[in-house]
């Protein structure tokens, strides 16, 4: 895109999306008895959004994203435990911590292909889990950190047992970060990411600093993941090493695919569907839940990716999809 065309316009938030966020904001009245669950959905949604940045938009296959979630959670948790209970500064510190870790490990991750990246990220995640377990005098190990006490948010809102403050806090943070990610995704940087996902060789040939940009997005994604981890630590006032668990990394991949990768709302929708389904279905019979989840994943892949949002888009744009596929024949 030549500079003569002017800076690309970032589209304004369409009314549908505004309604979506307004509905979430009225959650205090719509689902007052389920605010704790809703907060956890938002936290998962933010985490999945960060994962969308690296998998959906940049094509980095990772099964170790929980590493950054955990680092953020512990950064916030340890600060609060040692007396610094102010939530917002703790949140920022957590994001910085996790982002820094993302920056360091980013160099490892950009080397190699899919399988190597998968292995390296998995190894990093597992390594951090074991490390956190070893340092249980600091992390509390499986039993977790004791004595986390959060000061009231903005000096006014106490974290109450009904989860009202927690919900408002999670919603505000998620919304702000969502707006930020949206901006990035619609910028030239964001478009170059998609290019690197679809054809890295060509991007290199075009002169894009592929590795540098991948490291940049990886750092950003790590920072956001860290913030979502910190939200969990602050709203539940508890952290234990299960924040680093491999299951969490695997779950976020499933959540993203269920919602739709490479699409802004994919993370939020996927996290919502997954968390709510798990919450209600696991009451029925947990063994069957896993079976049907597996079948669902298989169905999604066989019928073409895109998850819930992808199916929706396809329903609306069938003709365009058809023409698009014809053009893509080798």
């Amino acid at each position, binding site marked *: 895109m030549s500079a003569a065309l002017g800076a690309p316009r970032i589209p304004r938030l369409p009314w549908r999306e505004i309604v979506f966020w307004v509905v979430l904001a009225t959650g205090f009245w719509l689902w007052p008895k389920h605010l704790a669950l809703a907060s956890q959905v938002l936290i998962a949604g933010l985490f999945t959004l960060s994962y969308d940045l690296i*998998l959906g938009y940049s094509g980095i*296959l990772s099964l170790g994203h929980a590493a950054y979630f955990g680092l953020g959670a512990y950064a916030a948790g340890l600060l609060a435990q040692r007396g610094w209970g102010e939530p917002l500064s703790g949140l920022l510190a957590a994001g910085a911590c996790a982002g820094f870790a993302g920056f360091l490990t980013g160099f*490892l991750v950009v*080397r*190699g*292909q*899919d*399988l*190597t990246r*998968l*292995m*390296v990220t*998995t*190894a*990093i995640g*597992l*390594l951090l889990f*074991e*490390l956190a377990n*070893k340092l249980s005098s600091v992390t509390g190990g499986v039993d977790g950190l004791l004595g986390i006490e959060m000061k009231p948010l903005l000096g006014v809102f106490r974290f109450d047992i009904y989860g009202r403050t927690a919900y408002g806090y999670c919603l505000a943070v998620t919304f702000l970060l969502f707006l930020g990610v949206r901006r990035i995704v619609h910028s030239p940087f964001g478009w170059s990411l998609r290019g690197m996902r679809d054809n890295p060789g060509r991007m290199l040939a075009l002169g894009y600093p592929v590795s540098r940009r991948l490291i940049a997005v990886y750092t950003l994604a790590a920072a956001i993941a860290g913030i979502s981890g910190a939200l969990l630590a602050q709203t539940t006032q508890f952290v234990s090493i299960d924040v680093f668990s*491999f299951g969490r990394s*695997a779950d976020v*991949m*499933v959540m993203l*695919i269920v919602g739709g*990768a490479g699409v802004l709302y994919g993370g939020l929708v996927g996290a919502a569907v997954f968390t709510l389904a798990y919450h209600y279905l696991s009451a029925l019979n947990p*063994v*069957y839940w*896993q*079976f049907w*989840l*597996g*079948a*669902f*994943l*298989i169905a*999604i*892949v*066989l019928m073409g*990716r895109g998850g819930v949002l992808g199916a929706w888009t396809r329903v609306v744009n069938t003709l365009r999809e058809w023409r698009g596929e014809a053009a893509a024949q080798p």
Partner: protein
Amino acid sequence: MIASLLGVLFDGLAYGMLLFLVGVGLSVTLGLMNFVNLAHGAFGMLGGYLCVLAMARWNIPFLAALPLAFVVSALVGLLFERLLFRRLYRRSHLDQVLLTIGLTFMAIAAATFAFGPQQQAMQLPEYLSGQLNVVGVDLNIYRVFLLALGAVLVVALTLVVERTRFGAAVRAAVDNARVAEALGIRVGLVFQIALAAGCGLAGLGGALGVEVLGLDPLFPLKYMVYFLLVVAVGGTTTLKGPLYAALLLGVADVAGKYYIPQAGAFIIYAVMVILLIVRPQGLVSRS
């Protein structure tokens, strides 16, 4: 001192051999069909449960249950290849990862439903239990058996790949499937047989591993990391690569736990990260 070193080496090699047996099929499918099969562990689990069932319910002796595990796992693999996997050879790795993870979940749920969540115990035959004393080192008889059987299988596999026409077809298909097809090699058939063999070996490995690795419905997830490790470090273009990788990782894990038990679990992950940084294409690769 030397005795304990030899002992550790021996245990590590046996453990590595087991990892190789179960993981080699994964390497083959990745190198041959560019297909990431994260459900590979599920075939290992199938072989394990089959072996336990055969011995406990149908009174089949251990040594006879092993080939049964191999054959049934191979057949099931073949079935999945025809019904499901072949649709994914051209799809992205992510799609393959997702589908096979989905398959794994279903397998775990099915195993929990059929056998319950607890560990399976197996009674080894008398002649395979106990210890042998060889030049002052106590060797576990079952692990000697594992190493011996593993060595035989490796030799057999290498012979097949390097000396038979089928092996040549496999090598050709790994190098360049399109050209191989153009030359008249039935690449589709090669894929099927290779995948079936890989799954069969996984089943055999799973059955052999019940005694050493344990068996419960979470087996595919628990050990998936180790198998992926073997493949990522060993590369996918040769048989020797995964073999060396598996043996190296087995020895590193056992030695690490023996000499530096505080670092226990780290070693294997740290070794893997280092190896991947230094040689992202794997330990042994054909250029």
